[in-house]
């Protein structure tokens, strides 16, 4: 276990979620936008419509700046956020999928060098060569999705990996294909939303009308196909996790509403754009991007929630404790050792004075235990993300004359954690469990 980072009111995990969701916009724009560009550029050359090239220049600059400044940095930011939110989780993924990420990096090289070459050689090199650069970028960029979806799919369902430990058995699991098709369809919604925003700045009305209409049609197609493949994706998720998809509505009630509302609003927006392409202005176009962000946020949060109680399914719990053996990798579960010796004994970053729970350090030991076991998902403040005080009170323990009785009831509840499908079981000794209960009692003010 590494040092813990507490983010006031939030958790490090939610910082990761925010970074990852933000990254979806520039990354999906990158994978999809060049297909739209290629369509428009080919049209411009074939039908001799140079006015369309103004869009190519503006849209490419937007890809360059948005996808390869904010997008590249937020992509690196996901790794950094995962490092400080769940270091053992990202380490486990990297030690399995390092060659997958390294392969993706090769395509990242092609993307970055490709977009610079594409943007700076527009109108400078002959048309055939410029289109070739566009094709290389478009295919290369989509290939990054082919790879990263394998790793994302593994994070939802590991397929046969727990038995074989094989890279491709985890990569091409039962959720892979619907997941890839879902993202491939939805990426065109991102491309379309941004293309319409860029089109509002075009000076030529015929170009603006053409781009807006075509983008709207691509957007509608992406939404329809994406919805269908999302349904298939949900169906492909193994039963234990798909049960959690229903439960996610209980955990975060707004997710489903936001998902459906953004779908409906974007559909209406694209239909309107198709009918009245010149009526759209920058402000509604930006609002559409905000709606898009909301939709992506709810989809990504749901995907994250269905991983629970694991961060790496069938292997590592969300609190970074290895819960299952992986014999093919010669890895043993840690829970048995931790239950025997104690989490405060085996974790590296624990003050020496807290390694043993004893009279005089119970509250501090309890807080340390909570930091290690609970802080991945819960804050310990009165308010914030899944705040422990509120969650304990929600269990409606009855006030007792003796605090010890209340603490005993909380400890009894901790014993049942493993029965909840989204919670890891408690790992530690009885003394640590009681210390944790004492700490939770102290912050929750049951009375």
């Amino acid at each position, binding site marked *: 276990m*590494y*040092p*813990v*980072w507490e983010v006031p009111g939030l958790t490090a995990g939610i*910082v990761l979620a925010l970074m990852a969701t933000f990254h979806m916009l520039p990354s999906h724009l990158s994978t999809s936008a060049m297909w739209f560009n290629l369509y428009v550029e080919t049209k411009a050359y074939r039908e001799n419509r140079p006015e369309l090239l103004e869009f190519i220049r503006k849209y490419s600059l937007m890809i360059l700046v948005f996808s390869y*400044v*904010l997008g*590249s940095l*937020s*992509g*690196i*930011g996901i790794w*950094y*956020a995962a*490092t*400080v939110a769940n*270091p*053992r989780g990202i380490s486990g993924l*990297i*030690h*399995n999928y390092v*060659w997958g990420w*390294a392969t993706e990096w*090769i*395509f990242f*090289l*092609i993307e*970055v*060098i*490709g977009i610079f*070459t594409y943007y700076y*050689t527009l109108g400078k*090199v002959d048309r*055939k*060569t410029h289109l*070739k*650069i566009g*094709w*290389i970028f478009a295919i*290369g960029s989509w*290939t990054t999705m*082919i790879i990263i979806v394998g790793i994302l799919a593994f994070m939802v369902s590991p*397929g046969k990996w727990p038995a074989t430990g*094989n*890279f*491709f*058995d985890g990569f*091409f*699991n*039962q959720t*892979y294909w619907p997941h890839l098709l879902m993202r491939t369809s939805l990426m065109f919604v991102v491309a379309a939303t941004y293309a319409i925003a860029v089109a509002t700045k075009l000076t030529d009305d015929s170009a603006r009308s053409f781009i807006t209409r075509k983008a709207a049609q691509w957007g509608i197609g992406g939404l329809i196909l994406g919805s269908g493949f999302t349904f298939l994706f949900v169906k492909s998720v193994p039963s234990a996790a798909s049960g959690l998809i229903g439960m996610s509505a209980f955990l975060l009630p707004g997710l489903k509403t936001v998902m459906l509302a953004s779908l409906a609003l974007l559909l209406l927006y694209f239909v309107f754009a198709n009918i009245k392409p010149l009526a759209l202005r920058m402000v509604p176009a930006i609002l559409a991007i905000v709606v898009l962000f909301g939709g992506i946020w709810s989809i990504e949060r749901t995907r994250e929630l269905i991983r629970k109680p694991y961060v790496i399914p069938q292997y590592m719990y969300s609190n970074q404790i*290895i819960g299952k053996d992986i014999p*093919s*990798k*010669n890895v*043993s579960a840690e829970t048995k050792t931790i239950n025997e010796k104690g989490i405060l004994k*085996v974790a*590296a*970053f624990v*003050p020496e004075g807290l390694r043993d729970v004893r009279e005089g350090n119970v509250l501090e030991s309890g807080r340390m235990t909570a930091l290690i076991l609970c802080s991945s998902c819960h804050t310990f403040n009165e308010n914030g993300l899944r705040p422990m005080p509120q969650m304990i009170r929600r269990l409606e323990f009855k006030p007792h004359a003796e605090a010890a009785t209340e603490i005993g009831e909380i400890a009894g509840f901790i014993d049942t954690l493993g029965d909840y499908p989204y919670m890891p079981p408690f790992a530690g000794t009885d003394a640590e469990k009681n210390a944790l209960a004492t700490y939770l009692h102290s912050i929750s003010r049951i009375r």
Partner: protein
Amino acid sequence: MDIGVMLKTLQDPMGVPFYPVVFQALLVLTFALHILFVNFAIGTSFLSVYGHLKRDERWKRLSGSLARATTVNVSMAMLLGVAPLLFVQVLYDPFWYASNNLSAAWVMGFIGIMMLAYSLAYAFYLGKKSGKGTGIAAYGIVSFALFLLAGVIMHALGYQLLQPDKWLSWYAKGNSVDTSGTSLHAFQLPRFLHFLVPSFSMTGIFLMLYAWYFKNREDMEKGYLDWVGKTGAEMAFLFTAVQSIIGFWWLLALPGEFRFFANPFLLAGAVLGVALLFFLYAARKDPAKFAVPVGVAAFLAILGMACAREALRMKYAGRFAYSIFDYKVNLDLGSTALFFSTFAMGLVIVSYLLAVAFQSGRVAGPYVAGPLLQKWGRASIVLLLLWIVVVAGLGIFVTVKNFL
């Protein structure tokens, strides 16, 4: 807890999917490429602002080119930084994660700072392009200052990483722990300067390459290019000399027990650095002519120093009986083959893109690619499609085998 035991406990139990030495070689090579562009980025960022503020027309003109170059250099630095970031997590995971989590707020701050710095670099470049006045210098100045701050953060994280014996004392005071992640705990000036000063040497060489690259373009005046080349050569020589002094300072600051001055990698790196200094001295007479061999020599010196840096990290880790060569290997030949075959393919495609960019930039007007480049472009597209067919085929095979 004993530090050596702690590091072993923290090490990922999954092991690594191929031999550690291969990851180490990739780590060193990609780090050398990364730091090369970090140097270019910091140097061009500084000079673009400096030139913008000078009254000299030549400086103003150069400033425009460098502002544009900064955006490309930063992008390349980030792109090439991803690979060593990945490989360091594979080999030195206990060190990397502990150091980052001790200063987690700074780690996330780094991303925010870089986003702002890079956006401002673009604002500066696009502002200059659209003819805005001296006022936009503020974008460039703040951008440069933020890039430096990002460098300070990276330096501190990299230096904290080497001191596992201090980690717990940074994290815990008595029985309470600092979970705010708001402190940077270690800074070593000569080490930081040893990363920073080469930015100005390398940017000097960048200017020499600029003079060489544009020398045949009819829209570029010879006098201007000569001035750029000479300025670059003088700058590269001066800062390489300063760098060699800082190198000694850093060497003296290292723990004596390492006896690092006798390390063959350091000696090789130092010899390459000194050779570069002499080479630069000679190159000042005709910078454009010597630009390419000087560039190659400079990269070799950087590669030598990257090897020395890795050797030093092994010394620090060895203090606590940690060796990357003890890492458990769980061979995964399929994914290893996937990477290396993609790597080979990527070289062909990236070279094509660079060839188009290189050739088209060397002529003043429109550029029409010759038959070789046309074929190369077609082959690149076919290779990409072939890659997809092979991987999709493999995916279908695995899906059928496991689930149908």
